[in-house]
């Protein structure tokens, strides 16, 4: 009898605690399920359906995937997205880390330079893309004019930047690095603040030089930050769309050839062709790619951490 009462009391206390905990989670979780989880599940289901948003939904099995694997433009978009990611991720990380190390020194006007480095990230994409397009205009832009003065090559021999199929991806990669490195620099700066200065001190006493201190203290201490930056960068690179549209889309609002990216394919399928099933199939592939990369990174990070 006595123990039963205790058990009931214990249960109710536990339930109460749970209830409190759930009530704290609820606002976020309701939002998450409504705006993320439900659309996510819906998207998964849609990939085996055919639906235009109005007419009855039809089950089509793996037709959407078969079509995707036969679609040349999909492979081109995938290839361009991979190229872009391969360029942007390591270079942005290097640039952001370099900036963070520089601006972590005790130098005069440090806050000013930090702001300057962060500024491109805050600036409106459309506005800065317009400025870049002007700077890198092959015939009228100052970049090629300076190159012309230095090399004395005719403009036709200089890079065509965004207007040239071979330079298009490198141009957006440069643009993207410049635009986002300030953000990752801030994350690295925060990471650097967490490194215990005593570690450097004792390493210095033991005779470690700047390179060794960087190699054996900074890099390992920054591992969680690096992992975070790497993951966010990869995800953002796979999702790239806005930069390409602002730089390359003409009045018809299309991307083609070396400027086509995966999210553009999804946008086209969903909102121009009104084929939500096909769009979801491409989105699912994008999701799986990012998921696999993230899992591999987790494994790698665990190993690295040990």
């Amino acid at each position, binding site marked *: 009898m006595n123990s039963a009462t205790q058990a009931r009391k214990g249960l109710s206390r536990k339930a109460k605690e749970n209830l409190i905990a759930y009530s704290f989670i609820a606002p976020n979780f309701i939002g998450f399920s409504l705006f993320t989880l439900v659309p996510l599940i819906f998207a998964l289901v849609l990939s085996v359906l055919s639906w235009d948003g109005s007419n009855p939904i039809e089950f089509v099995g793996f037709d959407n995937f078969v079509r995707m694997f036969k679609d040349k433009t999909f492979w081109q978009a995938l290839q361009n997205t991979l190229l872009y990611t391969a360029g942007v991720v390591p270079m942005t990380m290097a640039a952001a880390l370099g900036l963070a190390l520089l601006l972590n020194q005790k130098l005069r006007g440090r806050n000013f330079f930090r702001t300057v480095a962060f500024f491109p990230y805050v600036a409106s994409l459309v506005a800065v893309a317009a400025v870049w397009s002007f700077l890198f205009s092959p015939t009228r832009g100052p970049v090629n004019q300076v190159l012309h003065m230095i090399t004395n090559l005719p403009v036709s021999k200089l890079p065509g930047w965004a207007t040239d199929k071979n330079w298009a991806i490198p141009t957006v990669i440069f643009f993207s690095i410049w635009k986002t490195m300030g953000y990752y620099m801030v994350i690295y700066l925060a990471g650097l603040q967490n490194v215990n200065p005593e570690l450097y001190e004792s390493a210095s006493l033991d005779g470690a030089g700047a390179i060794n201190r960087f190699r054996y203290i900074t890099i390992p201490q920054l591992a969680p930050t690096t992992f975070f930056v790497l993951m966010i960068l990869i995800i953002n690179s796979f999702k790239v769309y806005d930069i390409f549209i602002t730089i390359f889309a003409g*009045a018809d609002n299309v991307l083609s050839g070396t400027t086509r990216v995966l999210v553009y394919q999804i946008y086209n399928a969903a909102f121009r062709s009104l084929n939500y099933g096909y769009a979801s199939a491409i989105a699912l592939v994008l999701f799986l790619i990012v998921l696999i990369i993230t899992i591999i990174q987790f494994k790698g990070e665990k190993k690295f951490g040990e």
Partner: protein
Amino acid sequence: MNKPFLRSLAIIVCLALLSACAGSSPPAANATQAPASQVEATVAPVADPTAAPTVEPTPEAPADNSVSLKWALWDKELTIYYQALLDAYKAVKPDVTIELLDLGSADYNTVLTTQLQGGDDIDIICIKDIPGYANLVKQNFLEPLNSYISSNNVDTSLFGGTVEQLTVNNDVYTLPFRSDFWIIYYNKDLFDKAGVAYPANDLTLDQYDALARQVTFGEGPEKVFGAHYHTWRSAVQLFGVLDGLHTIVDGSYDFLKPIYERVLKEQDDGIVQSYAELKTTGTHYSAAFFNNQIAMMNMGSWFIATQIAKVESGESFSTNWGMAKYPHPDGVPAGTTLGTITGISVSSHSTKKDEAFDFVNFVSGPEGAVVIASTGTIPAIKNDDVVAAIASLPGYPTDEGSKEALKTVKTVLEMPLHDKSADIEIALNEEHDAIMTYSITVDEGIKNMNERVAEILAN
């Protein structure tokens, strides 16, 4: 940062990534696409239209037996005939209040579809282009109008055959109220400077090319380009359909080869500005024409009202200008040109369909045509009186040639109605872009068009 935190963060970001791509969310690109927006029928220098829908009721408070209708359209602030039409309709039907729902021009079809899917109580819908129309019909968002047309005794012969071209499965879902066609705009001062006679109203494509080469002069920032092709596919590719032997939904595009070769040669020779550069710098055709940079430009008749207004406001420096008929292939009569139609429809979800059709009928009918013409825009009902009214507007070039330029003998629709026209348009636009940026050769581009459209037509 600890690992459990990172792990949950990673999962959430992955989920967010997929859900962001799910069909139910609105496109994230709206804001970024705004600068590329094609502003047709710009009339007054007003701030940029926003992509976000805005509703503005007309000032009068509704009376007791009043009806309120909602009209989906684009560029409310930039288009003067909307208010003129509302005012004229108010005089006939004082009890009807019409709200304007501005969905922006850049992504009108996408935003409209999203609104309709979300159950917005739109009663009247403006149709921006044929692919958009085909999609709306397929999605059952438009009310079939045949029964309304017969019960209201609407004379569709006034539209000169366009209603027939808009018929899907024996029913028509829109009535045209604007019908634009393509002409040549030219800068008289630049022709005078080059010592070349103004373009005649009967130019063949070869003559147009030769003339463009004659009026190209100067170097560096002062260079004058003989012609100008805007970064729309229609500005280049559709010279190929003027002979009436092919359409753009045929599925076979070999006939476009000479068209592309001619234009790319002009691009290589510096007769026209590079497509890729115009595209990446986001140059609007009006800016190119206003700044005395180009001697001739092929563009739609919607630019007439803009050019007149911008000359008046001092924004267009090309103050001495004229118009000529569209260049045509050999053996095709002068006055053959491309056309686009802007329609007005009743939403199938509207609860006030009769009232909505009454307004649709007013706007597309003879009374609406007079109102639209008075603003310098060409209405769908286009007879000699309407053309004369536009040609006598203040600011319209006074020479006889420019007045004659508005007379057309045959108008070929830019995009014929086809239930796959939206998909065909994407494929053609993309391959056009690739050809014009030299990403692929003309032959590769045409091969891709043939293959991709065949695939679309087969599905």
